[in-house]
């Protein structure tokens, strides 16, 4: 559950000013029990809710002051000017700690300790029995809590049969434990009676949970607070030392010695050697679930030890990335040659040759996958860089931000990762600058003061999705529309869906920022982002809810160098369409064309699909065949057909860039070399659709004037 800490800080500030008033009044009439009680209650609440909302430092400090004042309340010590001075100083210190925790300057810890020391000095020495003892307990406990080490616990939970009768759902308790850290749960069914005797309203199951967490034992016990009297709860810290003696010496095992002396053959040893668990179960000494629990315990300890041993030393080789690039190029060539080999061997009709070529094909595709995986990098390091960016930007803009990440392990081609940096910087900047509100505004609309930005990377088929989420004010479709009309990007009477309105932010020269800041607002940005993402053959998508936040999703291909393509011909030329976008192929006869009365649409199973005649687009003048093929593809969430002469089939495509001369031919994303040495152009379907749309709207505008 998200805890809104602003509620606490507000209340705490209020209580602090109340506290100040009460203290000043108390100075006037030091004997007023009512006033002393008020001071005590104010501090009690600050401490109590402070701990609840995670303001541990506030809670710990206030506890000390409260302890002393409790004595004043009991009459153990008298209210003196010194006590009031110190309490006032303490109040300022609490404020400083609060300020620090909400983004202000760090509080002066030395000063805080001095106040506590002097407060403690007020306590009469002879009366060291109650209060100082409790404060000592509290501080030692606090020390334990602040320790950030992870501990592994074994938690045995054995509920009473009647657990369900109180409406308790043990699954929820286990889930709660699971949320505290890494958790493994083993269930025991030993107590389960035969079906005929089983009462479905009773809880026969018990559990052993192995939890590795930063929380301490008390936090674990707290989970079971409501079932305290209905559960046998046994929590034990799994300490490494206990298991050390097992790995201590490298004494040879009996079996190994016997084999070495030639008394036993290795085969016989393997036959006789059964895991201890299996033997114990077979002899009926221990039940199977108990073995399972013990094995899990072993595993948890092992994992913890591994973590401590820093498995970083895993064998890795660093090589210059240029060598990798060369390797990928070579594999690309190999794939091309292999295509030729396949083609030749089939046309020669030599059975032996075909077999060999198939073998080669299999090996090369494995080689290709392996080579590609070498180039894969986890996106985590890129995410890590943004932590600093978010921090610096939010300070610069006077906002408080917190960045969380997810899926750092997700791997992407190195080239993609390298080229992803700038677009992501732009998007994050935009989110912090335009998306997330100022702290004052956030408080006003009841959001946590600290804005949240979340970066996530997720695998999705042959693509990786990268999501940038913020909890800012979201995009306002109305405002976007107005701005777009102002800038003449859309016609004043244009009707836009919200989704189309969001797309406007990717237009060149578009900015809705009221004022231009150092960070953004000059209207260069999102259009550049869109272009660079498309250059990576990716897509970008915006979702937003006004007042709630914005999610920008980048969909990127796993790799740039090799794609699966659909090979087609038009007028004797070869073209490749990216297979990932292709949905189906249908025929287009002359009658279909005539029936549509000149419009480029076709009826596919009662759905009207517009199509683009590639032949016309590229001014290929030769006559089209009687029956053409339409390759229906998904472009920007819409189905669009592309008319070709014939479809040849799937083709593993090594992408070669077209070079400088053709860099303005944006309708092609590259070229590839076919088995017989012919060059085939790779079509960029998204660009083609957009060009046609622009041309058509221009024609319509021209016709209108």
């Amino acid at each position: 559950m998200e805890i809104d800490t602003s509620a606490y800080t507000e209340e705490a500030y209020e209580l602090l000013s109340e506290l100040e008033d009460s203290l000043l009044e108390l100075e006037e009439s030091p004997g007023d029990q009512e006033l002393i009680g008020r001071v005590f209650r104010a501090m009690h609440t600050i401490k109590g809710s402070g701990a609840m909302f995670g303001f541990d430092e506030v809670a710990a400090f206030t506890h000390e002051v409260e302890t002393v004042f409790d004595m004043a309340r009991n009459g153990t010590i008298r209210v003196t000017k010194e006590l009031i001075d110190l309490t006032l100083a303490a109040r300022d210190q609490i404020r400083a700690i609060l300020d620090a925790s909400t983004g202000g300057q760090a509080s002066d810890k030395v000063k805080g300790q001095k106040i506590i020391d002097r407060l403690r000095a007020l306590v009469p020495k002879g009366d060291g029995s109650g209060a100082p003892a409790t404060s000592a307990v509290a501080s030692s406990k606090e020390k334990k809590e602040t320790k950030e080490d992870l501990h592994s616990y074994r938690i045995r939970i054995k509920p009473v049969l009647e657990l369900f009768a109180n409406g308790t759902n043990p699954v929820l308790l286990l889930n709660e434990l699971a949320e505290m850290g890494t958790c493994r749960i083993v269930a025991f069914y030993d107590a389960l009676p035969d079906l005929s005797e089983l009462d479905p309203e009773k809880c026969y199951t018990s559990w052993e949970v192995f939890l590795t967490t930063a929380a301490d034992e008390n936090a674990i016990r707290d989970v079971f607070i409501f079932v305290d009297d209905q559960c046998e709860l046994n929590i034990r810290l799994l300490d490494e030392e206990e298991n050390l003696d097992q790995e201590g010496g490298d004494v040879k095992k009996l079996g190994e010695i016997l084999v070495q002396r030639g008394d036993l053959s290795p085969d016989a040893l393997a036959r006789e050697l059964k895991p201890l668990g299996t033997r114990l179960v077979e002899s009926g000494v221990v039940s199977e679930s108990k073995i399972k629990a013990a094995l899990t315990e072993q595993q948890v300890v092992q994992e913890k030890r591994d973590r401590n041993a820093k498995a970083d030393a895993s064998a890795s080789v660093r090589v210059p990335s240029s060598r990798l690039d060369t390797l990928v190029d070579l594999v690309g060539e190999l794939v091309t040659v292999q295509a030729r080999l396949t083609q030749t061997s089939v046309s020669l009709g030599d059975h032996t040759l075909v077999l060999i070529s198939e073998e080669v094909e299999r090996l090369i595709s494995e080689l290709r996958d392996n080579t590609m995986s070498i180039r894969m990098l986890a996106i985590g390091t890129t995410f890590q860089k943004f932590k600093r960016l978010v921090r610096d930007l939010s300070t610069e803009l006077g906002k408080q931000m917190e960045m969380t990440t997810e899926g750092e392990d997700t791997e992407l081609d190195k080239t993609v990762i390298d080229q992803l940096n700038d677009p992501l910087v732009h998007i994050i900047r935009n989110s912090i600058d335009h998306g997330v509100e100022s702290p004052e505004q956030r408080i006003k609309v009841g959001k946590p003061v600290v804005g949240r930005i979340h970066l996530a990377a997720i695998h999705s088929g042959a693509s990786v999705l990268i999501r940038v989420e913020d909890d800012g004010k979201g995009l306002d479709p109305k405002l976007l529309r107005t701005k777009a009309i102002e800038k003449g990007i859309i016609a004043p009477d244009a009707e836009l869906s919200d989704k189309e309105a969001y797309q406007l932010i990717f237009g060149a020269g578009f900015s809705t920022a009221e004022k231009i800041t150092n960070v953004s607002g000059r209207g260069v940005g999102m259009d550049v982002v869109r272009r660079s993402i498309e250059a990576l053959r990716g897509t970008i998508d915006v979702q937003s809810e006004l007042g709630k936040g914005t999610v920008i999703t980048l969909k990127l291909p796993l790799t740039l160098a090799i794609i699966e393509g659909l090979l087609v011909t038009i007028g004797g030329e070869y073209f490749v369409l990216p297979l990932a976008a292709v949905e189906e192929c249908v025929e287009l006869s002359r009658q279909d064309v005539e029936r549509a009365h000149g419009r480029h649409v076709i009826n596919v199973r009662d759905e009207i699909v517009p199509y683009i005649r590639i032949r016309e687009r590229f001014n290929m003048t030769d006559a089209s065949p009687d029956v053409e093929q339409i390759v229906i593809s998904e472009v920007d969430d819409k189905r669009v057909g592309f008319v070709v002469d014939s479809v040849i089939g799937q083709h593993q495509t090594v992408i070669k860039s077209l070079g400088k001369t053709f860099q303005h031919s944006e309708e092609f994303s590259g070229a590839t070399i076919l088995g017989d040495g012919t060059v085939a152009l790779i079509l960029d379907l998204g660009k083609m659709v957009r060009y046609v749309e622009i041309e058509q709207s221009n024609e319509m505008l021209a016709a209108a004037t």
Partner: protein
Amino acid sequence: MGKKIMTVDDSSSVRQMVGLTLKGAGYDVTEGVDGQDALNKLKATQVDMVITDLNMPNMDGITLIKNLRALPQYKFTPIVMLTTESQAGRKQEGKDAGATGWIVKPFKPDQLLGVIAKVLG
């Protein structure tokens, strides 16, 4: 649709505070002014959870819990009672009657939601 929670208290301000908190968190809320009222309403419509005060006119919380546990449709429904610090003894009484858990008054909205998340999921 959110889960349905019945809040039972003779104090309208407590009902209001609990109600606002629950609605804010997306739960559906129905109210009962005392144990008897709640029992009648609960028999008519099924809820996913009950939050009840203990000291109430007509029928107190403990009796309500006992009555609810006797109904088949509320046998396993989470029931949380509102107690004060001075009523430590009644906590046990409530548990024996079949309460799932308790919240000590006064409490913060977050505490309340925390307890609900604990017993209702």
